């Protein structure tokens, strides 16, 4: 392997002989075998043509991209059996993508077939610095500390450390206004209440039409919102919607369990529950009519609406909060009051002693 080119010098720090690992002496690098393109001029010419063709197609495709950009309308579509593609998107991507690909393939082919492929050797060095460097640094560091008078006037060093540590304080304090502070009062105004109030109508969440009990059939589920949600706008609307969303279901009163304390919360088998999962807050809406189960599509928590909204499966712990409902003078379903417990996922300061638990009445 005398003709191998080496780069650098062997390092004395890392031995190159490893006789225990290899009981047979290291035979050294295998001899260099010429490629077909090294010995056959025709093969080399062929490889050259390939590389030049790949490179030569790039300008064609690049210009093609520009043509497509200006010439193809955005509403043209191409059909490929069951698949449909936006013509402009497809052609822009094909021209640009193939141009990039050909440029890359040409370069790699050039390196593989035509560039000199004799391997070279680099010698490794240890990662640590030389003893000379270490000694130099230690001596100079000592000198520098002396020159800075740090060794004599230690108070400077000590106060410096304290100063650097506390300079972070303003940076942290400056972030204290990232959001309102969830104090007890703030929580009571925000995450612990919704806009449901006595007499607020339950309306369809898309059309905002109020709902009459006689229009809800047994087995039917209606996605509802409080009527006063329409008065809100922007982020306030979204925030309240995220908490107040409900589902109104009608079940045959003889097939479900209604706890005595909730006898007056329903209208002849029509019950209203929070739609927000008590696990992490996805809106739950997969309704199994026959079993009265409501499944959350996010993490498969399942609640039994025929049994006070208790969890029957999945990672959620708490029952779905139930909204007490009644009928107003005009015959529409209204809320009797806000939820008794905060709807939605748990948070640390949430008092979960009043949630409905199995065995409660």
């Amino acid at each position, binding site marked *: 392997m005398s003709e191998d080119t080496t*780069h650098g010098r062997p*390092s004395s720090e890392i*031995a*190159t*002989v*490893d*006789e*225990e*690992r290899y009981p047979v002496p290291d035979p*050294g*690098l295998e001899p260099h075998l010429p490629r077909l393109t090294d010995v056959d001029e025709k093969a080399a010419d062929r490889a050259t043509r390939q590389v030049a063709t790949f490179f030569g197609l790039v300008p064609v495709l690049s210009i093609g991209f520009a043509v497509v950009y200006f010439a193809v309308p*955005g509403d043209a579509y191409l059909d490929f059996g069951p698949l449909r*593609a*936006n013509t402009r*998107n*497809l*052609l*822009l*991507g094909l021209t*640009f*993508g*193939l141009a*990039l*690909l050909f*440029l*890359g*393939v040409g370069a790699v082919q*050039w*390196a593989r077939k035509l*560039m000199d492929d004799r*391997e*070279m*050797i680099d*010698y*490794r060095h*240890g990662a640590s610095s030389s003893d000379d460097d270490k000694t130099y640094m230690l001596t100079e560091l000592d000198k520098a500390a002396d020159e800075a008078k740090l060794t004599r006037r230690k108070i400077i060093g000590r106060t410096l450390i304290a100063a650097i540590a506390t300079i972070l304080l303003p940076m942290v304090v400056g972030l204290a206004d*990232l*959001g*309102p502070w969830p104090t007890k009062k703030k929580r009571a105004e925000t995450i612990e209440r919704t806009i449901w109030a006595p007499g607020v109508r339950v309306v369809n969440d898309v059309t905002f039409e109020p709902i009459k009990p006689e229009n809800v059939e047994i087995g039917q589920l209606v*996605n509802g919102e409080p009527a006063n949600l329409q008065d809100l706008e*922007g982020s306030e609307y*979204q925030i309240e919607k*995220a*908490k107040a*969303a409900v589902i109104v279901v009608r079940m045959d009163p003889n097939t479900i369990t209604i706890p005595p304390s909730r006898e007056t919360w329903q209208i002849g088998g029509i019950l209203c529950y929070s*739609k927000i999962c008590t*696990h*992490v*807050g*996805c809106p739950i809406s997969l309704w199994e009519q026959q079993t009265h189960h409501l499944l959350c*599509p996010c*993490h498969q928590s399942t609640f039994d609406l025929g049994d006070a909204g208790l*969890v029957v499966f*999945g*990672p959620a*712990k708490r029952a779905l909060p139930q909204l007490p409902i009644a009928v107003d003078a005009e015959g529409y379903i209204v809320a009797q009051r806000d939820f008794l417990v905060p709807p939605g*996922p748990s*948070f*640390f300061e949430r008092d*979960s002693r009043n949630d409905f638990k199995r065995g409660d009445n």
Partner: protein
Amino acid sequence: MAEPAATINDDDSAVRAETPKKELGPVFKVAAGPTKWLDDRVGLAGLGRPFFRKVFPDHWSFLLGEIALYSFIVLLLSGVFLTIWFKPSMSEVEYQGSYELLRGITMSDAYASTLDLSFDIRGGLLLRQMHHWAAMLFVAAMLTHSLRIFFTGAFRKPREINWLIGVSLIGLGLVEGFAGYSLPDDLLSGTGLRFVDGLIRAVPLIGTWAEFFVFGGEFPGELIVPRLYMVHILLLPALILGLIAAHLALVVYHKHTQYPGPGRTNGNVVGYPVFPVYAAKAGGFFLIVFGVLTLMGATMQINPVWVFGPYNPAEITAGSQPDWYMGFVEGAIRIMPNWEWHIGSTTWSWNVFLPGIGVMTLFFGIMAIYPFVEAWVTATSVSITYWTVPATTRRVRRSALPP
């Protein structure tokens, strides 16, 4: 009588005199002026000399890290294009773009501008899809690259710091990806944010405070998209870029690991030089990765946000789930038993906190400490430069290697 010593004829001056100085090609002639100008100011030749013919070993598995690097570059390029039109705002507008099914519907600026990018900006959909595919490839390549590093023992001394940088890059990549697909403010991304809200709340003691600080109040508010935008296009890319630079600098300093073979010892590295072979191969491979991602953006639909509709906190699509690389957390959240403590007036949500934050911490924690645990268990402290298993490193230790 001593044998005659072999003599080396090192006087080749006669030969040298006969060889005419090689005539430089036209490129060199043109470049000579500017190159000299630059060299006079920054010492170009001296800077380039240690790297110009630096040797890298050759193996297909070494390309996995390259794919990660190149897809990150594609992410930067396509991301810059997207920021030109994307509006990171949750202010509400009525959509009037060319996608008829959503025309007249109230939605956030973020979602409306994503629709504009998809339907009205020429090349916008291509770049959006490339960006998302590149994000997938970035994370996938980082994970497979880490498997290569792990199973070839390339995380061992002296490369532990680089392993830690790599673990941080995977963690940042996951968060960056999540922040990215939360930006369009479509139904799916809003559902992801809803989950994160529940996750943050579930942290014992500080959860509610963290929630209010992250969202600027209650979920969803109007700040989370602009805040995530800053995180997604400035904070995390800057961190990732800095860590990648350190990662590569350490690879150069330590030199590449190599597979064992004849002539490949613990003290050398055998392969091709940066110029010309690796410049052509790596440069070409970057363009291949770029090209393949472009073809994927052209032919493979990803995250069709117009199908999901704008975010509505009272709606959800069946089968909502995050991008695949968050699947281990999502799965853990699903199979976790519903453990929740109600102590006094407090709620401890282990059912969300443990699988959500605990599993991620565990995963990255185990990865981070593994090299140190292994070195301790196998009592190894030598520098390893090629493929080894722990049992073998013990034998290497007794050989002529320095500590």
